């Protein structure tokens, strides 16, 4: 075997090693990225399963004067972000003022958020829905 053949084989060896390493690196990167995103998705799904909220208003006696007041209780097993909840009244997203009751500092399981909706609702049938950041929510139909 001449020096020229050995040099050619060495070049092929280096080239094959470089290409194989690059390809393996790309595959590893893609799979790591996918598994990382799948883990995040699974965690979000798990949190959603363990979370729950309930509108605990008495549908016979929703306070409407001077403002309409709703109460949302965390009936799940996780602490939720209460300041980012979406409130819909009669199908429309509305702006509300939310406060935690009983001196709570976090919307932990068992805690209650008071939602104050400024406009006074007219007499008749109404529907309020709340949706938390992770997708869990509740709806209440009531009559004034």
């Amino acid at each position, binding site marked *: 075997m001449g020096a020229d053949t050995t040099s050619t084989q060495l070049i092929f060896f280096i080239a094959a090693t470089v290409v194989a390493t690059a390809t393996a690196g790309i595959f590893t990167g893609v799979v790591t990225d996918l*598994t990382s995103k799948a883990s995040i998705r699974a965690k979000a799904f*798990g949190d959603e399963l*363990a979370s729950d909220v309930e509108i605990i208003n008495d549908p016979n006696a929703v306070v409407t004067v001077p403002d309409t007041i709703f109460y949302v209780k965390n009936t799940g097993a996780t602490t939720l972000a209460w300041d980012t909840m979406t409130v819909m009244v009669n199908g429309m997203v509305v702006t509300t003022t939310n406060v935690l009751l009983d001196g709570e500092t976090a919307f932990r399981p068992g805690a209650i958020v008071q939602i104050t909706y400024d406009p006074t609702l007219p007499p008749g049938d109404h529907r309020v829905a709340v949706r938390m950041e992770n997708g869990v929510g509740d709806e209440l139909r009531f009559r004034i």
Partner: protein
Amino acid sequence: MGFDVTAANVIFFIAALGIASTAMGAYWQSAEHVEEARRIGDRRAELRAHTNITVVAASYDAPDKRFTAEVKNTGSEVIGISELRYLVDGAYVATSAIESVAVLGGPGATDLWLPLETIEVKFAPIEPSPTYFQVVAQNGVKANWRG
């Protein structure tokens, strides 16, 4: 097969092992998290299905302006008394406005509300006489009364 092909195969094999190990680790971790959440959700649904409460009586003492309600645990689950929340005439009653909650015929100090037991809830003076009363258990199960 040349040495270059063998080297490439070894690199691919090692990379495949790494990828499989990462993917399996992530899969088991995710599956465990979802399974744990599912167990919590199932347990919550079971507790809720077995919880039931009924307002058996409510009265207003006009001279003292005191509202008192009697609520019976008609389910088969033990309920935490301190976890109960109340609405009078649709308004939330702060825990500071609850004078006392006692199990009728039960021990003096307890937080456990056993099945078939009745609790008596006394509120701080309130005016006028309430028309609506609602009690909410920790898991969201409610009972209503209308005067």
